[in-house]
């Protein structure tokens, strides 16, 4: 599987994502600078976590206007896989590749902890290795993970089964306990929790590995 990680000024989980991808695919991802306007063909693009542009103005807002986003969009339009993790999820909503927004956490504080997620859909390229309705343990670390969408949008999202991960114990006020969603076409996913931090190397259960293995499986 060929993969790429987009690097924005302020990305800080880019290396972590690259490490996880290398672990699972056996190949290092291409690291693509946000000013690039084109990139070679890959199977999966990861928008990593971090604080692109310091999260100034709104998290993800300025990154979503980076030159590379056009290439990311083209890739997605052709059916290529895109995974936005944490700040990457914020970039995807800000660029309207995913519906809704991620607002300040309900408690107004940054939250870093391991949370339990329910796998709401185990038939997507991002989750096919999980059991349907499985409970998994993945860490969150964010200040703005409170998912919001207008009522009609939310209804559509739920109606079309676009929610992939839900919090079992909602840490941030997200509507419908949403932790991760897909676009309508099913090839772009955004999630606040960090699967790359749960690779089983640091005394954790390794529940994040199956996320990357799902992608490997989907690409074939």
């Amino acid at each position, binding site marked *: 599987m060929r993969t790429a990680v987009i690097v924005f000024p302020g990305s800080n989980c880019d290396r972590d994502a690259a490490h996880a991808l290398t672990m699972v695919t056996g190949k290092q991802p291409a690291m693509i600078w946000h000013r690039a306007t084109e990139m070679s063909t890959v199977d999966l693009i990861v928008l990593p976590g971090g604080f692109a542009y*310091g999260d100034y103005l709104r998290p993800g807002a300025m990154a979503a206007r980076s030159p590379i986003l056009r290439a990311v969009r083209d890739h997605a339009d052709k059916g290529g896989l895109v995974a936005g993790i944490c700040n990457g999820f914020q970039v995807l909503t800000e660029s309207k590749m995913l519906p809704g927004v991620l607002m300040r956490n309900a408690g107004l504080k940054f939250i870093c902890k391991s949370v339990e997620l329910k796998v709401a859909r185990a038939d997507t390229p991002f989750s096919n290795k999980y059991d349907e309705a499985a409970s998994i343990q993945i860490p969150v670390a964010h200040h703005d993970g409170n998912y919001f969408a207008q009522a009609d949008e939310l209804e559509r999202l739920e109606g079309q089964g676009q929610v992939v991960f839900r919090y079992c114990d909602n840490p941030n006020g997200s509507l419908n306990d949403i932790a991760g969603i897909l676009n309508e076409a099913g090839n772009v996913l955004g999630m606040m929790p960090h699967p790359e931090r749960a690779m089983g190397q640091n*005394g954790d259960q390794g529940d994040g590995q199956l996320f990357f293995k799902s992608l490997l499986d989907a690409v074939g």
Partner: protein
Amino acid sequence: MTQAQIITDEMVAEHGLSSDEYRILCEHLGRTPNLNELGICSVMWSEHCSYKSSRIHLSKFPTSGERVICGPGENAGVIDVGDGDVVIFKMESHNHPSFIEPYQGAATGVGGIMRDVFTMGARPIALLNALRFGEPDHPKTRSLVTGVVAGIGGYGNCVGVPTVGGEVNFDPGYNGNILVNAMCVGLTRTDHIFYSAAKGVGNSILYVGARTGRDGIHGATMASTEFDDDSEAKRPTVQVGDPFTEKRLIEACLELMATGNILAIQDMGAAGLTSSSIEMADKGGVGIEIDLDRVPQRETDMTPYEMMLSESQERMLIVLKPGTETQSRQIFTKWELDVALIGKTTDTGRLVLSHKGETVCDLPIAPLCDLAPKYDRPWIETPPAPVLEYGDLPDRDAVSVLSQLMSCPDMASKRWVWEQYDRHVMGDTLFASASGSDAAIVRLHDSEKGLAMTSDCTPRYVKADPFTGGKQVVAESWRNLIASGADPIAITDCLNFGNPENPQIMGQFVRAVEGMAEACTALEFPVVSGNVSLYNETNGVAIPPTPTVGGVGLIPDLAQRAGYFGACEGDSLYLLGPTAGWLGSSLYAREIEAMRDHAPPPVDLELERKNGHFVTEAIRAGLLHAVHDLSDGGLACAAADLAIASQIGISLETHDSLPNHGWFFGEDQARYLVCLPASRLEKLQKLADKADVLLTFVGEVGGKDITLGSARMNVTELTRKWEQWLLEYMESKHANGS
């Protein structure tokens, strides 16, 4: 030169120089300085930059060792961790700014200490912070905690370096002066260490990072004077941090370092452009010429004085190899950072500044550094503290005492704090604040080696007996590293004290340093970097003496890391080391009997060594399920930590000759609690006999209760109380309007 301004006595005083210091300065110069020069000299000779009150005592620290590559004197200390890897670390205070503006003060403290580490070529891999606040009921405390914690998280989280450990304490002694000490640990290779000594003549000086504004002018002098009720007026000098710029600065500097273009590099810390340029020149034995018109400026009409004294954050100074200017600039442009060639190294040994075509400063560099005043300030020994006889204290129900201690502000869980810190970014954190280990542990990337880190200080001991307290601080740091499975290597420190012009305070300082030095020598645990913060005093009331120590150790094989979360049903508990039941200056005395300032527990460094080495051996032999050092609250609190972290019951037996308070809560040093299955007892006892250490059976693991003698309490209930205090305190509404 600009026309000579008349320097009045008032101007000299405003710059914090004594009239003697000013006279000496004029002698070195052979003339009177102009205002720019006065400003520059005054910050160089401030306590903060010159260490004038502390230097002669700091030289008592052992600073070398087998693994020490660079001790104090550079931006941070460097130690060898094998296989070509080196670890660079330092701790620094940001006390005064954090009291005035907690969010920005703490944030810029974190930013500043990271720059000290990446300046030397290391990528920061871990942050710690030691925080001391006033009593919880003080009207300012809650908002200070809120702001400081948010500031530390706001900066470290954004830059993307995990905050893995630290300490938070509350004491009325900090009501008027909180302490914010931040530590940064970085990693690089042996052949990728960068130093600050400017080299050669005619080499370009590159300014990179944020533009210079009028912020923090006179921050260094501010950190060197006491607060009084007029401090409000000094407020606008607080700087604002920009972690996004810092993050780019780290990446850009590391990228430039990889090119080999750098001859010397130095961050602009306290006293900004002044101290960075002068220190680089002084260390390299060269002169420096700067054209101030080329300094990137954020505001209009900045004067030379303002530019030289500004403490704008996120700036660095670099001396480049000739011919590499264009390539070097491009790297910073790519990262959208300001970059400018502002001057050259010279052979004059002087700092020459030009502005709008005029020379506005022309100073000899050496006197500003080497000839800075050095004081052997008068000091007096702290009078010996009375010994607290435990026979004088009433007997109390051990379990309700335990519950009270575990939920007191100093012991209660700090979850509210550390959940706001990103502890896992970079993907190498094994143990952070929550993990039930005496030290934080971070993997050296892509290896099976780990670094253990801890920050410690028990100010109540230091206050009662600075010498013993100083020894204890170092011993506790060492013990914490041992208990996590590490080989302790070296420390950094942050010496927070009151006004050194007061002989009592100076006495605390001198004796604490001597105690620390003795322990460092005995434990082969040298000091490789540090910082001194004096004048932590408001209206004549000084903080308790607080020499914080940041210890670093190496875990050669992460499979052998240790913690206190692994206790299993049926395990036996053994206490390592002798117990006299020492309650003087203990947590028990303070919290339960409201008794302070009795003689603290003696520190036997030979015993520390012996017991510590035995623990290392037992851990590496794979004998232990859990291990925990004994500190605040003694045996019972250590057992409670173990029970909470492992979520299992523990029963401790009473002692046949010691009373319950001394046995359960005494704070005798050099002790550890170890937990293992019965099947491994024989092996452990054999090791103990060989090592000649005292191992005492104290209890068992199992069930759901913590039991002290015959009294018991449910572990879930104890956990709840321990978790609850800080959450409730912080969430309870702003009762005091702050």
